[in-house]
């Protein structure tokens, strides 16, 4: 098997090279690194309330990025990802409280639990396609919710509070949770980017564009989709664990609520399906809307739904799509372009 090139430039025959990075992306890379460094130092300069908001931001970003990976790239439109949010939350509860494992290690283990459960889940859910696959994932999420609600050890229908958290000083815990959330959010974006740069990314695009053709060319459609589903499950469970590390009170109705999916969908649709930049923009818009409209009750959700519908019908590529069309920017370049090294030579 030939080595997959990981550097941005690859020698191609005939005096051309394959290039991915653009000037804009290089600039943004530097800016991004600076931003991440500043954010990592958050505990030094930000108020506690700001840190809490940012925890919500980064975990939602992780969720949205994972949903985008599934739906925008692998063509798996799941409305059951809340299953993994819930599993992450209850995994945390179980390992930290019941088993007494280190609190922060439990977050990681909760993520792994989600990935493990994703294996039989995918085996069942993949028997369905399209819209029926979507509902199927929802039903499975409901099953997990009902099963968990019936386990009294985990608090049954009324839920439990994470007691292991009280072992730590409040401020220290907040800082640690924040760093964890930042890691999960940034990590999700980085993982998505790395996955899509490699052969997997090309495979996914091929599957998305023309599945049957991709299959005939040797792309392992099932295996590829399966892998992506597992990664997304891991990411969502991790995010779920961090969310409830922050919220502390875990209830099945809330942890397995369809609202998580509603938020993921809204964020990705507004930001731009099938782009890595999309979820970032979408999460920002979502938080701005949430801050300004939270007093309006159910009208806020009506607006979210209406915007999602309108964007899907009229501006299918979302906000980032509009920007990218105008400027040609690509902050997370995954497309490979053939660049002529000696443009003066004729064909």
């Amino acid at each position, binding site marked *: 098997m030939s080595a997959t090139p990981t550097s941005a430039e690859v020698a191609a025959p005939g005096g051309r090279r394959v290039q991915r990075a653009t000037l804009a992306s290089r600039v943004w890379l530097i800016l991004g690194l600076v931003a991440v460094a500043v954010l990592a130092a958050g505990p030094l300069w930000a108020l506690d309330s700001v840190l809490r908001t940012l925890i919500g931001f980064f975990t939602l970003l992780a969720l949205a990025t994972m949903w985008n990976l599934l739906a*925008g790239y692998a063509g798996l439109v799941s409305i059951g990802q809340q299953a993994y949010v819930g599993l992450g939350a209850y995994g945390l509860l179980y390992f930290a409280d019941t088993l007494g494992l280190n609190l922060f290690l439990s977050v990681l283990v909760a993520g792994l639990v989600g990935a493990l459960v994703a294996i039989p889940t995918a085996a*069942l859910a993949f028997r369905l*396609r399209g819209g029926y696959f979507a509902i199927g994932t929802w039903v499975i999420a*409901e099953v997990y919710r009902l*099963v968990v609600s019936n386990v009294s050890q985990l608090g049954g229908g009324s839920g439990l509070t994470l007691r292991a958290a009280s072992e730590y000083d409040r401020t220290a815990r907040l800082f640690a949770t924040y760093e964890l959330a930042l890691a999960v959010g940034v990590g999700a974006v980085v993982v998505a980017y790395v996955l899509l740069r490699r052969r997997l990314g090309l495979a996914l695009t091929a599957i998305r564009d023309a599945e049957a053709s991709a299959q005939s060319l040797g792309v392992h459609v099932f295996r590829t989709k399966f892998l992506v589903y597992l990664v997304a499950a891991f990411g969502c469970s991790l995010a779920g664990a961090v969310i409830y590390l922050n919220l502390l009170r875990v209830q099945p109705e809330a942890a397995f609520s369809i609202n998580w999916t509603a938020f993921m969908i809204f964020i990705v649709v507004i930001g731009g399906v099938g782009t890595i930049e999309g979820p970032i923009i979408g999460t920002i818009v979502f938080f701005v809307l949430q801050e300004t409209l939270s007093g309006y009750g159910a009208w806020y*959700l*009506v607006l979210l*739904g209406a915007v999602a*519908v309108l964007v899907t019908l009229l501006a*299918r590529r979302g906000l980032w799509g509009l920007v990218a069309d105008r400027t040609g920017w690509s902050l997370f370049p995954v497309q490979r372009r053939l660049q002529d090294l000696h443009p003066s030579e004729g064909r």
Partner: protein
Amino acid sequence: MTWVNDVVQGLLLGGLYALFATGLSLMFGVMRLVNLAHGDLSIVAAFVALAIVDTVPVNPLWTVLVVVPLMFGVGYLLQRGMLNYTLRGGDPLPPVLVTFGLSIIIQNLLLEVFSADSQGLDAGRIEDASIRISDRLAVGWFPLLTLVVGIAVLAGLQLVISRTRLGRAFRATSDDQETARLMGIDNRAVYAVATGIALATVAIAGIVLGIRTTFTPSVGPTRLIFAFEAVVIGGLGSIWGTLAGGLVLGVAQTLGAQISPGWGVLAGHLVFLAVLAFRPTGLLGRTVPA
């Protein structure tokens, strides 16, 4: 021998589920579109019936005469004005996104307009009347009526599909929509009629449900899930499969609830998963779920 009673009650419940599932199955059969707002639309019908009954004191069953044509119209316009655009290009994402968005919009609009209070439609004595069959078995009039209506609707739909010009247009468009256009069939109108019929049937289901139990703005999704499970259990591509699936689901839930009250719905889910695992084409299905 209470299980006989349970099975019978389950069958009667199943008739309602089959009624819910009919519209979902039709829309998928004709245009491969899964309407995630399907359940919520049944609740809309229930609320419209409630509004009528609050203004004009009639038995809720009479509201069917107004609500069903109204919902047919809503379905036609919805498909023609919005959902048809999601079907272009063969991308599976837009239909899911738009119908999901609609579901959220409907639920929250209903919540704002009607509040989260539990509502019910009062059909009077027919709700409680029952036929005594034996010492241990009594069959309620209303559930029986529901089952009969469910079977009648399905039979009617089967007749339309197999014997009428419209039905042939449905099937031809489902087989090959490009060639169907060569036959002079207007896709856009065919799809709109299909959605209209789907919403008309789900309106009946919603009103019946409103009479039988209480409803709130947020129970739509649960109805959708039951309808979906009925379709998958019975098998895609088969009208009578939808009936069979509904009946099986109803029985599974009723028997499950006997084991433990919280287990009814879960039992239904487990049967659904079992069918998905061991017989993905469903009990009477003709094609692999796709």
